[in-house]
């Protein structure tokens, strides 16, 4: 990291003052849906060993959403992304693509969900991405992260 790397400074609500190297900035075309004024983000670790991250806006300090790799919770997760959407990010190969999902955290972990219908796709090297809206998809905006805590018959007990 050279000393004259350009830095973006943001006063974040949760993490205080952040100085982010320009080469770590993730640009979301069209912004995070519902937040059109935020297009520049950075991914922050909460705990470096955890798959949970924060996607912190560099345009609005109070905006950060929890995200993670969907495969951690939903190993079968797969989506079809339109050629146009990939082309707008200049993604040519699947391994250039990083897929993240937004998490809805609650005080009760049994209520925590992942939005599998609006994943964020990012070009791994160019760090340009967008949140896609899956129309014809088996997924919804709410999938429980910890169904085993919900204590109903549908949740399979793990230790029996």
């Amino acid at each position: 990291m050279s000393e004259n790397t350009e830095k973006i400074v943001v006063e974040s609500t949760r993490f205080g003052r952040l100085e982010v190297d320009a080469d770590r900035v993730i640009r979301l075309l069209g912004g995070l849906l519902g937040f059109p004024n935020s297009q520049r983000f950075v991914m922050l670790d909460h705990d470096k060993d955890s798959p949970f991250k924060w996607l912190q806006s560099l345009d609005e300090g109070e905006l950060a959403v929890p995200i993670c790799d969907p495969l951690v919770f939903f190993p079968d997760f797969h989506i079809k992304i339109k050629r146009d959407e990939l082309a707008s990010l200049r993604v040519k190969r699947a391994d250039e693509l990083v897929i993240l999902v937004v998490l809805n955290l609650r005080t009760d972990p049994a209520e925590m969900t992942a939005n599998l219908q609006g994943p964020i796709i990012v070009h791994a090297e160019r760090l340009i991405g967008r949140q896609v809206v899956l129309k014809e998809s088996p997924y919804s905006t709410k999938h429980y992260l910890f169904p085993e805590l919900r204590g109903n018959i549908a949740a399979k007990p793990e230790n029996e």
Partner: protein
Amino acid sequence: MLILTRKSGEMIAIGDDIKIYIQEIRGNQVKIGIKAPPEVTVHREEVYLRIQEENRMAAMATTEQMRAAIEMLRKRKERREQA
């Protein structure tokens, strides 16, 4: 807001790149064809609104909730390793 009346089979152009075709009108349903360049995303309003709403709720997350989620995932991993 601009309000136009169109018949089935007619079209509306927005700028040079976006075209909206009224393909079919049946009862209270309209079938609409939209032609737009790839950088313009077109959404059915309700899915789009649901995702916006989900993002707004996600943005209320606190660092305490994040810690609780991390802890829960760690416990789950331990349980699986023991099993």
